[in-house]
């Protein structure tokens, strides 16, 4: 049985990459992702992980090197954040459309300007449509478990898609948390070797990355859409077999005291833990509130989400990113879209908060819920509110 120990989340993520015995790590340093790749470089330097560490000259090259590595069938990992993820942007689309199973940890960070090394979800939202499977984790244990699961999902022959694990920069990446680090034997039992079906190999030449004329481009995109959508079944399967071995289970949408609750708050990432305490406090004070945590961001879990909010009267969505000049929070937009055609649906209130590393405390979440309930009744003229902003 694995032992529960205190460990920095970034270090634990790199240890997970060691446990899956990755072949290639290509990475460029960017705060707050640095501890992950520093520790991986150390593991390789000490011979604890037999891998090639490519210290590339930019994130664009980091992801490009990952394309090459995955295309020859090597188990491939990288990590990035904020501006780095943005510099990778065009390469991300290629990774998914060419069905290259790469795993990337993203220590979520705000986007410039003004420069901010601190956390929010602006970087994640900017890469929403890149075709990657995207999972948000809320604590160190989830980060470790889901990095291991990510390889299982990505390399599954029915999937063959890259996977991003989003963990909040600093608020999660730099925390020291108690967690169970899986045993090597458990991981070996759980994760089969990577057997990419058609790697670049002179024994059996393949052409990868042809251009597509209009007569076939649409079909290529449709195939990709089918592929990403269908991956949800494999993700659920993977989490199931993970639970069998590790006794920890995950689902696309998680609920906390939401059964029959009139008011629901929806959060993503590490803020969910703080929000849980706020929900406890409000329930102790007699309020009928619950929490929904959206873990699987892509493919979007429409059914699970609709199920989770069924019966609620008010749904308050907290976004950690701002769609400037648009409807406010990008997550809230998607939630609204997912529920629009439902005959019975809650009133939806959009908050944006926690930008550029600004903390939201337990009291903050209590305020958000109370204010949200009020806004749902009074009909604000605003599309959304930025929580705690000095106007």
């Amino acid at each position: 049985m694995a032992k529960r120990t205190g460990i920095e989340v970034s270090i634990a993520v790199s240890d997970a990459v060691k446990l899956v015995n990755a072949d290639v790590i290509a990475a460029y340093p960017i705060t707050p992702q640095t501890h992950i790749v520093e520790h991986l470089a150390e593991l390789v330097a000490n011979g604890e992980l037999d891998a090639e560490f490519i210290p590339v000259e930019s994130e664009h090259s980091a992801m490009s090197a990952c394309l090459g590595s995955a295309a020859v069938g090597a188990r491939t990992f990288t990590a990035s954040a904020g501006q780095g993820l943005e510099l990778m942007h065009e390469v991300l689309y290629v990774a998914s459309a060419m069905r290259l199973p790469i795993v990337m940890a993203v220590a979520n960070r705000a986007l410039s300007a003004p420069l901010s090394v601190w956390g929010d979800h602006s970087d994640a939202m900017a890469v929403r449509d890149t075709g990657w499977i995207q999972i948000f984790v809320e604590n160190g244990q989830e980060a470790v478990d889901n990095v291991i699961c990510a390889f299982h999902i990505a390399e599954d022959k029915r999937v063959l898609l890259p996977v991003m694990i989003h963990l909040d920069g600093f608020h999660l990446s730099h925390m020291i948390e108690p967690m169970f680090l899986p045993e090597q034997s458990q991981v070996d039992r759980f994760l089969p070797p990577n057997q990419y079906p058609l790697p670049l190999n002179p024994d059996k030449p393949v052409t990868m990355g042809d251009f597509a004329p209009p007569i076939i481009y649409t079909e290529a995109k449709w195939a990709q859409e089918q592929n990403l959508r269908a991956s949800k079944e494999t993700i659920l399967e993977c989490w199931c077999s993970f639970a069998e071995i590790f006794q920890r289970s995950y689902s696309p949408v998680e609920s906390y005291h939401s059964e029959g609750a009139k008011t629901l708050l929806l959060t993503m990432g590490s803020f969910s833990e703080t929000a849980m305490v706020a929900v406890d406090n409000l329930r102790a004070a007699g309020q009928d509130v619950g929490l929904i945590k959206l873990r699987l961001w892509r493919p979007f879990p429409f059914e699970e989400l609709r199920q989770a909010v069924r019966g609620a009267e008010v749904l308050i969505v907290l976004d950690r990113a701002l769609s400037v000049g648009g409807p406010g929070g990008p997550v809230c937009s998607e939630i609204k879209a997912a529920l629009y055609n439902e005959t019975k649906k809650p009133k939806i209130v959009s908050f944006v908060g926690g930008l550029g590393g600004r903390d939201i405390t337990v009291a903050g979440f209590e305020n958000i819920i109370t204010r949200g309930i009020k806004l749902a009744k009074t009909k604000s003229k605003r599309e959304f509110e930025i929580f705690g902003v000095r106007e």
Partner: protein
Amino acid sequence: MEKFSVYVPRLTTKKEKFAPGHRACIGCGEALAVRLACKALGNNMIVVNATGCMEIVASQLPYTTWRTPWIHTLFENTAAVASGIESGLKAMKRKGTGPTQDIVVVAIAGDGGTSDIGLQALSGALERGHNFLYLCFDNEAYMNTGIQRSSATPFGASTTTSPAGKMSTGQFTWKKNMPAIVAAHNIPYLATASPSYPFDLMEKVAKGAATPGPAYIHIYSVCPVGWRCASDLAVKLGRLVVETGIFPLYEVENGKYKMSIEPPQLKPVKDYLKLQGRFRHLSDDTINMIQERVRREYYNLVEKAKNGR
């Protein structure tokens, strides 16, 4: 040599890794150079292709011209993708999970993909010392997008973004010396080549592929469409460019310069320029200025080769 045409084909393989049937323009010097390079590379190779002419003419879902493993992803990242391929193969070979044979990783890109947008990725890959061969097929402008100037476009050439006009003599900058930039990375092998000297080109490609660590070959590639010249001139121009000293053929092996061909006397650059529409607006004064610079740079290079470095 008697019966030259009978014996020469026996000196090289008949196998074409770059198969006929692709859609390169008539008289394309680059397709010729790619075909020759492939003959020199053999069976155990993986080609990484930047976006550009060779990618467009040789791929189109669901067809391919490549009889060898081939990958194209983006424009500026060819050297980085090659880094990943080389590292992946290396790790898997060491761990006993991948191919056991030695595979040559060949990155190919045009002049724009090399000396402009792909310069950073190339510099990074050279500096890190990956074991790969980079071939730059230089047709001196962005031909695939419609003849826009690049930093490799020669002075005075009229392109769609450096047009000659009342206030312009065409390209106003001198061709970026890409081989010199590569040489500054102190890689083990660097060469220039022209398909008009096919055996020299093939020898250099084979040598580059056999070199442990990074190797770079800068290959002159005539583009009749972009240069506005007759489509039967690719081979002739490929010789003239060497004979005038505009594009000298040389090698830099472990820092040591060596001329491949030294014409006893340089031909005037005018012989080369006058065959191409892109230079036809140039005045005698401008041509003299070009002549002066070509001569100076050529003899600087010859001097370097004499001293070895």
